Each structure stands twice: as structure tokens, then as C-alpha cells.
């Protein structure tokens, strides 16, 4: 039986609470562009915020209506006490909304640790020195919260552990790209999202189990598509529509460029044992970053085209959360570049106003267009 990471997502607080019971600290994080390896090496479990389904109540009194559901969901669960157990919050500067949210939380709970981590957009000596000093300062702050002091040995181990995790996830992606249909896209994305909420040793074990159970089967017929943008885990839950509509439309997801997928800092922390692990970690944070705000859209276009070539992608579907400015700003650059390269695309607004029926009509129309293979784009 295949390991189902969706079950992990159903119990998303379990791992953090267990870690705390064992004497560790738990840090709520937004975006993978935070130093997870450093935190883990100091005995802190970083857990990524997931989005809760449902309506938002009290959070609407603090956040304006033109902010994304994701920020509302995080704030809602802070307000209702769901995240009471967290020892702190660390977000990366990936958009202005998340920085603003960190500000609200720091005012409402001044006794709690709240930090905005900036992974540089550039790559030069000044940025390198900044990140080194920032990581050291951060380690001291974590220590003042009760975490273990930073040690080169533990950091080395953490980097190795996280690198193994990245290799295993990349293996699943590569296998799926070569054998679309062998593993469902919800499984792949759940696997990546689970990495953000559970300790990596256990996660690595589960990934290995999953890899053992997925096999190359008879080739599934369908249209090969690539997903890009941002997708929240509620879209993966049973009863949600996106993936069933894709399946019914004969779409085979071969790759993704989602924040909760391939953009989850899945590149190895380079260097070898014996190098200063802090230097290695610093190097991994040099720009440009995977997040759209901190990377040129043309670079993103290049990555999408590379995936199209490698995995035979026939079209790209952009999943765009309502009010996600960094992604919205990329679209006017990405669509023409894809079009110039004969790659059709579809823009779908998710977790907002699009109903099942509207989504189905657009996806089906896009799939029909792909079967006619004209390079065009549809904005939905």
C-alpha cells in the first residue's frame, strides 16, 4: 500500500506538539526561505503554516479584505489559539502581506518571538556577509528562547539530513516526470508539504517507503501539463475539485513550479564535509531566490521551458491565489515568453471566487485547445 502523505497533513500539529513534549522548541514558519537547517541543528522544529479551510471571522478585523486567504488563515488560527503552542514565528520576505502579518502578530503578542528573515535577491560579498551575521544573530536569539547553541557538528548533520530529504523529493519528481500517472500529483505535493510540518528523519523514512511502492506502470494516455504559481493544501484534501477536474480532463501533471512544490528550496546545500557548514548554508541563501519577488520572471520562464523540454510538457496552468501580487506581476512576462516558445498556458484563480463549474469549463477548454496544440493563453 502506498504511503499517503495526505494523512500527515490531516494531523498537522501532531509533530510540533510531540517535538515540544520531548523538550524541543517549535517555530512557525512561512516560506521555505528560512534557515530550517540552522533551526533543526539548535533543536528547533520549523513547521510551515498550512491553510485551514473554512470562513474567516476575527482575522477580517485585522487584515484588509484585499489580502490573500493564506494570511487570513494564519492569523485566524493565531487568534483562535490553534497556534498557541508555537515558541515563535519566522517568516521570509516573500511578499509585503506576510511582512505585514508578522507586524500584526508582534504587536498583538509582544512577548512572543517574531522574526522576518530576508534571503537576499542578489549574490555578492555584502549579501554573503549579511546572511552570515544574520544567521549567527538568529542562533543567539534562538538560544535565548531556550534552544541549543549553534555547533558546527550539529549544523553539518542538519545540512546532510535536509540534503537527503531534497534528494528523495527530487527523485520522486524525476520519476513522476518520466512516468506521469505512476504517482498522483496530490501525493507528490502532499509529500513536499509534509516536509514542512514534520521532523526530517521521519519524513525521509516515509519518502523512502513511498519510493519503494511507486512503480513504472503502463504509460497513461493524457496531456502533459505543468503547474505553476501557488497552491494551498486545502486543494489537496478529498472533496476538493482541482485535481479531480484535471484527471477527468485527461491532464497528466509532469512537473510543477509551485511554492509548495519545486520552489520549496529543493536545491542541495552544496559543499562537502569538512567545509565550514555555516559558509555552506550562507551560500545556499544567495540570490536569486525561488520566490517570485526575489527572482526575475525571465528566470522563472527559463525553468518552466526547461521542464517542458525535459518532461514533454504540453501546457502550463498557473494557479494564482487572489491578491498574490508577486505572482500576478509575473504573469504578463511569463505568458508571452511561453507563447513565443509555443507553450500554451491557462491562468486559474484559486482559493478565491472560482467555483467548481467555472474551473471545470476553463480546464476543459484549455485541454481542448491543447489537443488542437495552438500556443495561446487563457485568463480565467
Amino acid at each position, binding site marked *: 500500500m502506498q504511503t499517503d502523505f495526505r494523512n500527515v497533513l490531516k494531523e498537522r500539529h501532531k509533530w510540533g506538539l510531540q517535538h515540544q513534549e520531548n523538550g524541543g522548541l517549535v517555530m512557525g514558519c512561512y516560506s521555505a526561505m528560512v534557515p530550517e537547517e540552522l533551526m533543526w541543528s539548535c533543536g528547533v522544529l520549523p513547521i510551515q503554516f498550512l491553510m485551514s479551510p473554512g470562513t474567516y471571522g476575527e482575522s477580517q478585523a485585522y487584515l484588509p479584505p484585499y489580502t490573500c486567504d493564506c494570511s487570513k488563515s494564519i492569523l485566524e488560527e493565531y487568534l483562535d489559539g490553534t497556534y498557541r503552542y508555537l515558541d515563535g514565528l519566522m517568516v521570509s520576505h516573500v511578499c509585503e502581506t506576510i511582512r505585514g502579518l508578522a507586524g500584526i502578530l508582534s504587536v498583538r503578542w509582544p512577548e512572543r518571538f517574531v522574526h522576518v528573515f530576508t534571503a537576499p535577491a542578489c549574490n*555578492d560579498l555584502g549579501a554573503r556577509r549579511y546572511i552570515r551575521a544574520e544567521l549567527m544573530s538568529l542562533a543567539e536569539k534562538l538560544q535565548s528562547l531556550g534552544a541549543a547553541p549553534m555547533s558546527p557538528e550539529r549544523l553539518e548533520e542538519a545540512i546532510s539530513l535536509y540534503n537527503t530529504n531534497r534528494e528523495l523529493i527530487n527523485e520522486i519528481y524525476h520519476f513522476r516526470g518520466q512516468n506521469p500517472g505512476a504517482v498522483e500529483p496530490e501525493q507528490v505535493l502532499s509529500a513536499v508539504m509534509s516536509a514542512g510540518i514534520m521532523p526530517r528523519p521521519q519524513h525521509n523514512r516515509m519518502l523512502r517507503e513511498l519510493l519503494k511502492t511507486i512503480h513504472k506502470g503502463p504509460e497513461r494516455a493524457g496531456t502533459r501539463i505543468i503547474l505553476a504559481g501557488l497552491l494551498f493544501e486545502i486543494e489537496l484534501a478529498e472533496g476538493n475539485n482541482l485535481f479531480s477536474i484535471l484527471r477527468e480532463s485527461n491532464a497528466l501533471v509532469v512537473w510543477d513550479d509551485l511554492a509548495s512544490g519545486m520552489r520549496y528550496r529543493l536545491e542541495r546545500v552544496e559543499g562537502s564535509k569538512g567545509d565550514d557548514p555555516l559558509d555552506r548554508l550562507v551560500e545556499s541563501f544567495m540570490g536569486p531566490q525561488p520566490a517570485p519577488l526575489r527572482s526575475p520572471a525571465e528566470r522563472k520562464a527559463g525553468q518552466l521551458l526547461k521542464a517542458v523540454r525535459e518532461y514533454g510538457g504540453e501546457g502550463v496552468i498557473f494557479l494564482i491565489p487572489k491578491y498574490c501580487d508577486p505572482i500576478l506581476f509575473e504573469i504578463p512576462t511569463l*505568458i508571452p515568453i511561453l507563447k513565443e516558445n509555443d507553450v500554451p498556458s491557462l491562468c486559474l484563480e484559486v482559493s478565491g471566487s472560482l467555483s467548481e463549474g467555472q474551473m471545470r469549463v476553463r480546464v476543459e477548454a484549455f485541454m481542448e485547445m491543447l489537443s488542437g496544440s495552438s500556443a495561446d493563453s487563457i485568463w480565467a
Partner: protein
Amino acid sequence: MKDDRLSNREIAQVRKAYTKSYYARIRQAKKEGRPVAYTTALGPTELLYAMGVDVCMPENYVTICCAKQMAKGFCEEAESRSISPDLCSYARCGLGMMYSMDGPMGALPEPDFIVGVVSACDPHAKWWELTARHYNVPLFLIDSSYRLRRKVEPHHEAWMISELKRLAGFVEEQTGLPFVEDDFRECVRLSGEAHATFAEIQELRKHIPAPRGMREMVGDLFYLITQAGRRESVDYYRMVLKETRERVRRGEGVLDEERVRLYFHNIPLWFNLQIFDWLAAQGAVVAMDFYTNHVWHGFFFDGGRFDSEDPFRDLARKWLFFDNHVGLPVKLSRSLISAREWGCQGAIFFSNRSCKVYSIGQPEQMRALEQELGIRSFTFEAEMADPRSFSMDRWKEHVGMFLDFLVDARR
């Protein structure tokens, strides 16, 4: 003896004439082959002017576009080219002007390179990418740390200095003109003097009646944003300071009798600055505002001055204290200071769909004003550069009731 005093209206005429000459100068620079750079309203003009670059700010041009009631068409032009209507209206209007090759004084000259600010807000990074791609010119993005609280750690400042030096290297590459430290030092000195003089003018707004309101000050801001580092900015603020002191001495205000003093939070509605005239007609003056005091001027508002003897360090400090680079605890404390020290009795918070940086966290500020100072707030939603977002009649109706409430509460 001839009275050579200038009224607020005459000061505005001086500024308008200079604004025209500024845009003419940029066009002339382009014609003569001098380097022209686009930058954002938070761009480091001191460094660019020091290096012989003519600075062009499309954002400022958008505000003129709004005042001339041309923004709607440009926003629609951008929206017809896959720019989402949910995105910043500065960006939509600016991109619309670029695509249409038009503007309030004609199309802006094409840039030779662009300097954006990734740390300021989402549009300050991504809008310029689209512009650079359109003109096929190099784009430089300045980055910076973000601090929730006021404390600056040494590595924050060191990185900001490093980013400014990296920019100097980039400008040298683009223009072939060398960076000359003495020129930069002089530009930073002039910028520091302009800010210090601007701070004195802001101080005078504490007088009752207030000699200058928000309508006048948002106009004054033109020099702090586009001309920081130039002699003209110092000359202008000295003139305004002199005239404002004189007004205070004579007891002249925006209003002869102030019924209510207000604090205004967020960018003004550039297409409808008449809201301030309407407020004045109701006896209400915006005695202090967030926009002119906390954004570019935050470092000086907090008491800082350019006194480190190192122009890079001085400029880095100014940058680290932009409102865009600090968190809600700092924003909130600045709002409290402004409302209290300028004697405001009510506050208007403009929830700006086009600016999440300034709008997120407003409810916390409103709560703090009420709890700590007993100041009640009114809030409304619109966009600073898209007139489709605002209904003046409805606004007047609601604000009118709010002003009545404030007056009744004081009785």
C-alpha cells in the same frame, strides 16, 4: 513698501513651474545623450545625481497624471495587457502610460537603465522588471533588511551600505562615469539639509491654526522625493520655512478657525486632492499625516540626522528607517507621536487597496490611538491612483457624520 510674502497658493505655483522644468530637463538630458535612469519613489537620488545621472520617477509622473484626471484610461490600458486590476494602481497607471507612449506632459523619455527597490514592496520590485523588459534596458534591484522594531544591528547597516556601493559600481558600468566621493558627500549633505529643513516645517504645523496642511505638504514632498541631493530642494524648503514661520508669527493658518484637527494615514488620493479643500470647508484641517512624515522622512522624524561623517552610512540610515523597511511596532509608535504631538482630535485612515505595506496594520493603529489617546478614527477603502475606486459623494456623507461626531464629543 511692496509685500513680497508668498501665500501657500503662490508657493504651489513656484513648485509647479519647477516641476515642469524638471521634466523638461530630463527630456533635454535624453536628447543630449546624458544618462537617464528610472527609479522608484524610494530610489537613491542622492547617489544618482552625484554620478551625473538624470533621475526620472514614473511614480511621480503618475501623481501628475492623476491630478490631470488622466489615470483611468492608463489603468485600463494596462489591464488590457494582462496587468491584473488587483495590482497597485501606481504600477497600472505607470505601465499604461508606458504602453500608450503618453502622459500628462507627453511620454516620458526612455530610460538607459532602471533602479528598483526589492525590499520596499512587491511593485517596487516587479513593476520595474516589466519596464526593463519593455525597453530592453538593465535593471538593478537594491535589497535591504527588514526590521520589525527600531533596533538596527551592525550587519543591517553594513549590508545597506554594501548595496549602495554595489549600485555605484553598476552606475559606473552603465554610464562610464566615475563615482567621485566628494560629489556624493555634497549630495548627501544637501539631502540632509533638505530633510532637516523639512522637519522644521513639519514642527510648525503644531501651531494652532496650522500654517500648512496635508494638501500643501504632499506638494512639498516632490522635492524630498525627486530632488533629494540637489541644491533646489534646499532652496525650496528654506523658502517654505521662511514663509511658514512668517505665517505662524502672524497667526495665519490653513483655516482661520480650526473646528477639528485631523491625522491622515496613507497616500493621498492623487486624483482627488479636493477632499482636503472640502475638509477645510467643514472646518477640519489635516494637521499631521503619515505620508509626508513617516515614509521618506522616517529617520529624521525619529530624531536622526546626517551626522556620521560617512555619506554611505548616512544614506543607509535614511533607508533603513523608510516606513517600508520597518514593522508595525515602529509604524504604530510613529502614528501615536504624530497624532499626540500635533494635537489631532480625530484620524482618517485610508485603507488603500493599492498599498498593502501602508494599509496592513491600520486597525491596530486605530485601536492604539483610541486606547492611548482617546482619538477616534474613520476609515474608507479606495486606491490612490485609480479614480474608479472612489465616490466623493459617499465619502463626504460619511466623513461629514464623523466630523460632527468629533465636534459633539468635544462639547
